[in-house]
């Protein structure tokens, strides 16, 4: 019995070290849309698509792939590491401005770039965004892209 308990303690010790090395951290999606894949490959099936600022639990990074857990799920999936940012990198909060500019907008405008600045810029500089908007409407699914590359179709 003593041996059994010692074995149990040692097993827990080793497990503790192994698991403790990969303590997860909270991260969020920093792109508009990001695919969550079954395994770490561009040809892996897409199990879900996350949106900007959706939270994930980050378990590690290897070769540009982030190992993640989604809220309400116990499974581990994979996303591009470049799509994630630490959860606490939210824009600063200063409350709604009297000028009608939102808090994140103020922080962005502090660097000079925001959707509000863009609207105003487009009006005053007479820059036409219609072709840029058209470019952004050319969307292809993940399957279309992979079939194009890997199958030549």
């Amino acid at each position, binding site marked *: 019995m003593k041996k059994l*308990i010692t074995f149990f*303690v040692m097993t*827990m010790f080793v497990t*503790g*070290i192994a*698991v403790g090395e*990969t303590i*997860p951290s909270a991260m969020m999606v*920093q*792109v*508009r849309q990001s695919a969550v894949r079954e395994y770490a490959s*561009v*040809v892996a099936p897409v199990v879900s698509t996350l949106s*900007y*600022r*959706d*939270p*994930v*639990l980050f378990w590690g990074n290897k070769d540009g792939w982030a190992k993640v857990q989604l*809220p309400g799920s116990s499974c581990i999936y994979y996303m591009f590491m*470049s799509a994630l*940012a630490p959860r606490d990198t939210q824009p600063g909060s*200063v409350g709604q*401005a*009297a*000028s*009608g*500019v*939102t808090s*994140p907008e103020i*922080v*962005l*405008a*502090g*660097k*000079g*770039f*925001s*959707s*509000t*600045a*863009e609207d*105003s*810029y487009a009006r*005053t*500089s007479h*820059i*036409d965004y219609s*072709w*840029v908007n058209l*470019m*952004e409407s050319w969307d*292809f699914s993940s399957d279309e*892209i992979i079939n*194009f*590359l*890997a*199958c*030549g*179709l």
Partner: protein
Amino acid sequence: MRALGMYRGKPVLLFWLSLCLAFAFSPWLAWAADPLPDPAQEPVPRQTPAPADDQAALTPEQVEIIKSAIRRASEAKLELNPEEEYYVGRAVAAQILASYKPYDCPPLNAYLNKLGQGLALFSSRPELYNGYRFIVLDSEEVNAFASPGGHILVTRGLLKLTRSEDELAAVLAHEITHVALRHGLASVEGLRLTDIISEAVISAGLASGGKVADFTTAFGNAIAGIAKQIIVSGYSQAYEFEADGEARRIIAAAGYDPQALARLISRLPERDSEHTSGFAATHPERQTRIDILARSEVPDQRIRRKPRIFLREDPGYVFGVAGTQQEIEEIRLDKWVPVTVLRDERFSAARVLF
């Protein structure tokens, strides 16, 4: 009880036991202590554009925050997040499209986007805020532009120089790398972007209590600086060599011929006094590029996917797929073609549109 009694005199062992248990379950404890919000239950406000009131005054608090942001950004190299970079990129792309006429050819632009977006998956930054977008410019000049947010513009003149999909992939991969490695923002005339923005903001009178319109001036000045850098000056030689090396890796990973870039470079116009714009003016000498490329190694990271063999039935040009010779025999398709042949056929069909 007997077991516990046995360890009564060994508190150290019990301590280790509890420590191990706590350590092993710490991730779940952390998860329980700070659960991730369910997006459905706790909607996070999106960055929807607020109605712009150009003449509305900023509060002193806001002015202080902006000045503080500029101060902080000036102390270190400016790091735009993907969303900010996207807005910069949109404006720069719009500026380029004001100088170059877009080529209104939906099938060609679709072809370019499928190829480019596929290649981007193998870049060091596969996902941008709003992805990579490609468009053909209706110009005979041999040139291409990579706007910071992922908008990539390629002239018909450059497309006409390509002789295969491998070479076209090399061009796009080179431009994708400029975006992925943030070359556009990092090389604004050797200045830090914050210098331009700070100067513009200060000159707009923000320090004395600015208005939303002042941001527009700052934004416009910064965009003009970046667009000028991309269109007229180009990137530093170091960035061009870096983009060449990375482009070679990307196309190899995507299953294209890694030598395609060197072949294309050898046909680019030579850098001389006659070329004051375009690739020849903004890129290093072609032999230097080829020599440096030849010295770089290409890791074997090709796309792995089965099936790798593709079948074609006549008549009707119907494609089928099979992974092994046995499968080919079982489904009794008597002709097969490798993916490279399909790519060649696809490129030939697209080339007439250049």
